[in-house]
């Protein structure tokens, strides 16, 4: 499905893309410290990766467990290219072109491996990608010549200064990444609007019928796989530049897994879903694990809840409300949202306080000093603290459930109204 529901309003599209460009432009000045700029860089990289992945998952219905193979090999080839560059420092041109080299690498391997994988679809496809991924990863530790073994291969992106550009400073790299991100996103969006892009959807829905309107479903899948591989490679190339080191992990199953998870979390059914997913992915891995030791637990729980209650991912939640807004009924829901937010936060506070205390006890041992939690000090030894946390949690959850019920009812009414409207308009049409 195209991201912008009503293509009628060209202006809306200009605004959206303009805003996107602007956001990319100013981001590093808003979040200006070292870390946040690297995070921004990684977000850009992740966005390309997840969008390319969604070409397979969302648009082609191909569940791949091995997308990291293409981003990763892209990184390696790019890094080799960087190092091959005349012993000394690389030229600005090379560095600027490097992501493309990565892209071509990704494309090459997609052509190579995709040929066998895309012969099949459904679970079989998924399992082949799983096998291929495992093999490539195993290879990566067994062939140090190419993969540099454990240490991976590192390079230096610093170029001879050219109009003040050396790509040493993170900010300069960021803008390179930003440009690539913008172009790639635009290109991938465009792809969804082309004949191949549309037939890809058709293949997802009903590969058999596709063959009876003149298309070779296998070929469609293969081509899409190659295109996806290309963009994956680009993001890989950028990653190589960003980290200046590439290690085996980049082709690892864990990496592929997180592409799948977060693309889905963001919303595979809308073009822009994976963008949200990508942002979350980077934040989760870089910041979340800093925030709390229990991050894996939270991550797992979040996934289960999301899948159960928002199978369309965050994007679908957004679009639902956009729809409501389009029918001018959003305002009456805002109150409910606020209420749920507040109660939800309370519940979260209580629960996470509990979880944090448990983890603290578990990791630091009984004798360990009390734990600081959002400014408060929680003492695992003190029963009162446990009780307090539990109480907050209970109250929070109860009130949240109450708020949710109220909201659900209202929501139902609104949806009914919208259905009705749509029917009317159909008839009117």
């Amino acid at each position: 499905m195209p991201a912008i529901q009503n293509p009628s309003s060209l202006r809306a599209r200009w605004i959206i893309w303009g805003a996107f460009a602007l956001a990319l432009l100013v981001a590093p000045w808003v979040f200006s410290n070292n870390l946040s700029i690297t995070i921004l860089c990684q977000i850009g990289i992740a966005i390309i990766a997840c969008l390319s992945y969604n070409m397979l998952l969302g648009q082609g219905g191909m569940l791949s467990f091995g997308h990291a193979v293409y981003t990763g090999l892209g990184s390696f080839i790019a890094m080799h290219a960087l190092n091959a560059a005349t012993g000394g420092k690389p030229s600005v041109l090379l560095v600027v072109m490097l992501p493309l080299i990565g892209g071509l690498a990704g494309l090459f391997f997609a052509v190579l491996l995709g040929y066998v994988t895309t012969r099949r679809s459904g679970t079989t496809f998924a399992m082949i990608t799983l096998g291929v991924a495992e093999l490539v990863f195993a290879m990566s530790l067994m062939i140090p010549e190419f993969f540099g073994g454990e240490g991976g291969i590192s390079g230096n992106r610093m170029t001879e200064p050219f109009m003040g550009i050396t790509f040493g400073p993170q900010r300069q790299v960021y803008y390179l990444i930003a440009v690539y991100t913008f172009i790639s996103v635009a290109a991938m969006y465009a792809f969804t609007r082309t004949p191949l892009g549309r037939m890809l959807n058709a293949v997802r829905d009903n590969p058999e019928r596709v063959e009876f309107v003149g298309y070779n479903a296998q070929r469609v899948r293969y081509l899409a796989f190659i295109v996806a591989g290309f963009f994956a490679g680009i993001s890989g190339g950028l990653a190589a530049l960003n980290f200046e080191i590439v290690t085996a992990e980049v082709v690892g199953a864990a990496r592929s897994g997180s592409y799948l998870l977060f693309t889905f979390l963001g919303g595979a059914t809308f073009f822009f879903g994976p963008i949200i997913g990508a942002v979350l992915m980077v934040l989760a891995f870089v910041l979340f694990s800093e925030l709390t030791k229990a991050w894996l637990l939270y991550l797992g729980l979040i996934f289960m809840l999301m899948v159960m209650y928002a199978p369309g991912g965050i994007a679908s939640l957004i679009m639902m409300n956009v729809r409501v807004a389009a029918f001018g009924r959003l305002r009456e829901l805002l109150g409910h949202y606020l209420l749920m937010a507040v109660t939800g936060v309370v519940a979260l506070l209580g629960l996470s306080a509990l979880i944090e205390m448990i983890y603290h006890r578990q990791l630091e041992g009984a004798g360990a000093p009390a734990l600081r939690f959002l400014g408060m000090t929680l003492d695992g030894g003190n029963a009162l603290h446990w009780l307090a946390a539990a109480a907050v949690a209970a109250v929070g959850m109860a009130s949240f459930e109450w708020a949710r019920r109220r909201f659900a009812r209202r929501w139902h009414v609104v949806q009914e109204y919208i259905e009705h409207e749509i029917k009317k308009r159909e008839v009117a049409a």
Partner: protein
Amino acid sequence: MEFFVISMLNGLSYGLLLFMLSSGLTLIFSMMGVLNFAHASFYMLGAYLGYTISRYTGFWAALVLAPLAVGALGALFERSALRKVHKYGHVPELLITFGLSYVILELVQLVWGRLALEFKPPEVLQGPAFTLIKHASDGLSLVWGQAAPEMCQAADAAVRVVCSPFPATRGFLMLVAIVMLGAVWLLLTRTRIGLVIQAALTHPDAVEALGHNVPRVFMLVFGAGCALAGLAGVIGGSTFLTEPAMAATVGSIIFVVVVVGGMGSLAGAFLASLLIGVIQTFAVAFDWSLGSAAARMGIALSPALQDNSLLKLTVSQVAPMLPYLFLVLILIFRPKGLLGAREG
């Protein structure tokens, strides 16, 4: 010779271990089409619960209770979470089990800590089941249980005697695996459950209208699958290691077994596990590499090439990877799997 025998036994027992691990998955994956990524986690859960229960009731009771507990948990999960997701299709099903695997891992670490536990098999199972004795002069012989040390060294040092004990735990493991095979087979053939589920995958309403309680059947099957995982856990945990990483290490290999065997085919999964087990075990014995092969064929390699690690890579080194190679090849050339009924 004795090396061959032992290796064969190792291969078979490893194969059976794989089958034991994957039988539950075969049930769930090929019946319900659910890619249960948390299967390994239930396996781990089985090991830990087994450990704790056995401290109170002893090993044998735990061998029964732990799987039941795990099965119950599995059923609970199906009822409260998986069921909701079922209608959205396989990807969401997969992802929710994915999330579950994280949660289980964390919870296990919270409850039992992050270190390996010392989960000992019962006395009976400690020590060897039988011992193969290879006597340089009077050949191969077999004694049950531990071979007396003096049997293991000859009077004069010239004669070489090798004793290769075969651990009782492995014997037991093989036994249980066989039992599981039987159990699942009965479940699938002697009952209509298999049919009901397959039918429900396409037309749940129709199946209900015919008088079958579909949701309950799904729950039972999922529970049963998890219980099998749990049983495997108790045995795997006591035979090998009970540690938080145990799920990850089993991880994807069990999918290989199921898929190679063929969706919906129990026999296939069985065959696949044995094949993989034996192949992998024997592969370990071979130190051939492309390099050495070339050398044997009289192709001279430049020194540079000679320590190119790709060429130096020996069969034994890649042995643990072979299953995946196997997987890819099978799926490409025989997408139904070895004995598969249908394609994924």
